[in-house]
Structure formats: C-alpha cells, structure tokens
C-alpha cells in the first residue's frame, strides 16, 4: 500500500515543492519507508539538471572511509561531465551523498547517463530540462527539509510515499522512477505488475537498461520507449493498459504534462480534483484537502481510464 500524488498548474506556476510536501505528509500512513518527488521547474533551453546520488543513506554510517569515497565519486562525476563537454553552471550538494548539477550540454542524454552511472556507487536519479527527482528515506517532512524543497517553484509534480513490500528500504528502490535515459519522464505507481519480468526482458532486448528490480520502473521505461517510437503520451498510456498486467494506478509526468492511468480492475484508489487552473490527484482525498482546505468537488476515475493534462 503506497501513496501517490500529482498536481499540475495550468498556465501558471506555483510552489510545487511545498504543495507536494503537504500532500505527501497526508499520505504518510500509506508508506512511511521512503518519500520521493519529481518536481518540474523552469525549463531553460540548452540546459539540463542532473540529480545523482553516490551512496545510499545508510552507507554514510558504515565504514571509516566512506566520506573520502563519496568525495572521490563527486570529483569523478565533475571530471566526466567536463570530459563529455558539459559546461557546469551550478553544482549543489543536497546531502552528503546526493548532488545536483545544472549543466549546458548538447550531446546525447543516454551517453551522459551511462558515463556518469559508470562511476562506482553512483545512481543517476534524473536528467531533464525541467525535471528534478529527489528521493530519500523517511517521511515527506524529513525529505523536504533535507533537500530544501519548500519554495521550489514549478509547473507540476508527482510524489510517492513508499511502504516497502518486495524490495529493500533504500533510495534505489524508492519512487518516483526516472525513465532512464529519457529526459523529463518520471512515474509513480501504486500496485503490482504481474508481467514485470517479461516486460523488462522485452525492453532490455530493445537496448534499455534498468537500475532497480522495481516494477514501477518498467512503467516509466515502457512509456518513454513508446513515446520515443512516436506515440503520444495518451496513446502510450492507453497501450499500457493492455500490455501491462496486474492491478495498478500510476501517474506519469513529462516536460509539460501530467497523466493518470487506472487498470481495468480499478483495484487501486485515486481521487481527482479538477479545475480550470489546477489539477490534483492522490490515493486519498485527504491529501488533496491538505492544499485545498475549503469545500471542493472530487471524483474517482473509473477502471481503464486514462487522463492527460497539459500545463
């Protein structure tokens, strides 16, 4: 039982960091193990934001040498960015083990991701023109404070509170998942895919790689692969209802859109608030109420339903 949430400002922007934190705090009871955000900030042409981690949170309290290793890995990432011709515009240390790089880069995103991921202990959390993916252990309040997310100004966001059931409690297994290596596509998911390995192997044969053993990552890569083949986001999501087996409700975000899909069994909850200026979705209405204390009309999307909203 995980909690998922999404929001999008239509034609405007807002403090999506604080808004998503409020929503995820309300969903803490659905998943206290880890919390993650995919926040979409201002898009700057020619620029990319790279979010990486070079160790797990628990690694920092193990071994005498971990801080030296972490420092070495960071230096190596900076060196490789330089080697690939990326111009480093900003280099921020979010935590001891997670970093944010704003770069100017005109090359191939897959090459960039692969080369950075090759650094020992490194995981590329996201690369995007607007996307910034932040995830860590603990509840939304902890993660938001740790990464200073209050005041993150943007257009849309998705988030996740995780109750670990089938994989470890670590950052690698936390949601959201970036659709490696497609810029700006991220997914959060509540449910289980029963044809995960078949789907994963099919995508691996097409040259894609997976950074975790989590079924949610399959949705992200599946959708990105479809879009790369020319499908629209909505079209890719429609096909996913036929090709992904299991019970699930997922939210997907791209550079300018937010999408929601619910499987044909409608076994996982989702509540939708929709107005001309703002869309909010969450596993429970209480999360939407956390940003709309006044009376609002909400509804449950139906089985097999796909919806997409553009910024």
């Amino acid at each position, binding site marked *: 039982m995980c909690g998922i949430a999404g929001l999008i400002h239509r034609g405007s922007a807002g403090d999506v960091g604080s808004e998503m934190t409020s929503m995820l705090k309300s969903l803490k009871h659905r998943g206290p193990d880890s919390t993650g955000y995919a926040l979409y900030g201002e898009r700057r042409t020619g620029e990319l934001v790279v979010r990486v981690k070079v160790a797990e949170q628990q690694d920092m309290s193990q071994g005498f040498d971990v801080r030296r290793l972490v420092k070495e890995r960071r230096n190596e990432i900076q060196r490789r960015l330089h080697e690939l011709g990326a111009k480093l515009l900003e280099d921020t240390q979010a935590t001891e083990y997670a970093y944010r790089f704003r770069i100017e880069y005109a090359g191939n995103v897959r090459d960039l991701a692969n080369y950075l991921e090759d650094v020992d202990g490194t995981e590329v959390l996201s690369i995007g023109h607007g996307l910034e993916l932040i995830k860590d252990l603990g509840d939304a309040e902890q993660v938001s404070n740790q990464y200073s997310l209050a005041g993150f100004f943007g257009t849309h966001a998705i988030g996740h509170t995780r109750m670990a059931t089938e994989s470890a409690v670590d950052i690698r297994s936390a949601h959201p998942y970036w659709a490696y290596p497609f810029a700006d596509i991220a997914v959060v998911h509540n449910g289980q895919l029963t044809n995960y390995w078949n789907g994963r192997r099919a995508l691996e044969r097409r040259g894609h790689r997976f950074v975790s053993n989590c079924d949610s990552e399959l949705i992200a890569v599946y959708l990105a692969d479809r879009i790369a083949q020319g499908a629209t986001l909505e079209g890719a999501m429609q096909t996913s209802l036929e090709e992904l087996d299991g019970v699930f409700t997922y939210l997907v975000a791209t550079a300018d859109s937010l999408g929601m899909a619910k499987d044909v069994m409608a076994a996982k*909850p989702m509540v939708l608030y929709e107005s001309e200026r703002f869309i909010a979705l969450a596993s429970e209405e209480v999360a939407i109420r956390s940003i709309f204390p006044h009376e609002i009309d909400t509804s449950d999307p139906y089985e097999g339903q796909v919806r997409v909203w553009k910024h």
Partner: protein
Amino acid sequence: MPVTTKETPLGIHAERLSGRSQQRFFRPEEAARFTYPQAFEVDFNKQAQFDAGPLSTREINLKLRELMSEGFGTVIMTNPGAKHALAVGILNRLNLRIEGSLGYFGCGLIDGPNIHITGRVGWSCAENMLAGTVVIEKNAGSTFGAALRGGDLVCKGDVGARVGIDMKGGTIIVGGRAGAFCGFMMQRGRMVILGDVGKNLGDSMYDGTIYVGGKIGSLGVDAIPAEMTALEVQWLERKLKQYGLECPRGANSLQKICAGRQLWNYDNLEPAEKKLIL
C-alpha cells in the same frame, strides 16, 4: 461524566445445536436484554454542533459518542476534512448531518442512524451497515456499501467500482453512474443505479436485484435480465421520490437484473449428516 447505556449482560446460551433445527434466541419480550453496548437513548429535539477540523479521527468519533451519551439526537459535524473512518459504529437512532466530505470507511458498521453528508465519501462508505439511512449529496468512491446488510444507502452523484460487493440486504441507490463489478457476489437486497454502469455487473450474484437506468458495460457470470413487475415499479418510484431522485424515463424503463442461479450449488446436508453419509 459517566457514560450510561442500556447495556445488560447477554449471557451465554448453553443449548446444543443439532440437525437443521433453529433455536429462537431473540424473543420479543426479551428485546430489552439484547441492546448493544454503547447504544444510547437520544432525543431528536436536542441538537448539538461541533467543528471536526482540528480533531483527529479518534477524537471526532469520541465526541460523537459523548454527545449521544448526553442524549443529543441531532448532531451537526462541520469540516470533516475527508478524514477516514468517521461516524462509524453508531448503534442507535441519531440524526447526523456532516457538512463536508469523508475519507475511506465512513459510516461503517452502523445500525440505526440517519446520516446526511453534504460532500463526497471515499472508498467503502457504510460498509456492513445494518439499518438506518446514509445519504450523500456528491460522489462516492469504490466498494460503496460493501457487505451492506440493511438500511438505505444513497449517493446522488457518481460512484466508483464494486458497488454493493457481497451485499446481504438493504438498498443502495446511485443517482449517477457506477463502475465495474457492481453487485459482485451479491446475496440479497436491492441496488438501483440510475446512470450507466461498468462491466461485469452482478458477477456471481447469488440473489438480490439490480435495477439500471443507463447502459450496462456487460453482465457478469450468471447475471441475467428479468421482467419488471408492477409492484417493483411502485417500490422504485416511492423509494426514489423519498430521496429526491428521479428516473428520467420513468421507473418502468429501468433494466432489471437478477441471478440466473446456475451457480447455485448449496449443500443440503448439515456437517454432521454429511459425516454419516461419507
């Protein structure tokens, strides 16, 4: 303040059950002995109002209980904030008006109160309700009225999937549309859906009746169309009018669905008898 109830010891019945005999435990003259613990005598003319906004789920339910124990029979709750499991386990008469929306599992396991909700409800509203009425002005989530045993459960808007799953009695009325798997394994009772309904309606239903005003996505296994009787039309008109609802093309235009009873495979033998034969 001490909480007073009509609770009295129920005692333990020592009678042995055998064969197909039915023991009559609940004689009318002994009715007073069989009231619930935490069921209160209330006066509908005594009214109270409280703000649920700053309170937790537990505090809200305790507040309701405290008011009922003081004899308040009409209670208005404001700002419920879509919190879960509110107004549950009310086992006596009460007029409760909830101004706002409830989260999941609202009004579950109730026996007797009349509850009016001006907002929306989340999943599993009025689960296992035994008697009374619950009326929701806006939409409702999935598993609406799951395992309902009695009373009237009314949603004037749209509801999610699996309405009345495993219902064993009572009436569910939906003013709008409903999702898939409504009436799954329904055992008794009536369900009225004025709008469209999703696929697998009445799948594996044992008994009970479903009336649908709109399009049916598909019928489930062993759910079959049936002829509407004049008596049913009268009942539907009366029931819908009671809750301010109307069937646009008249109650006799509703499609009636019931169990084909092809899945019935009941064992006619008691366990003891079965042992003798086997």
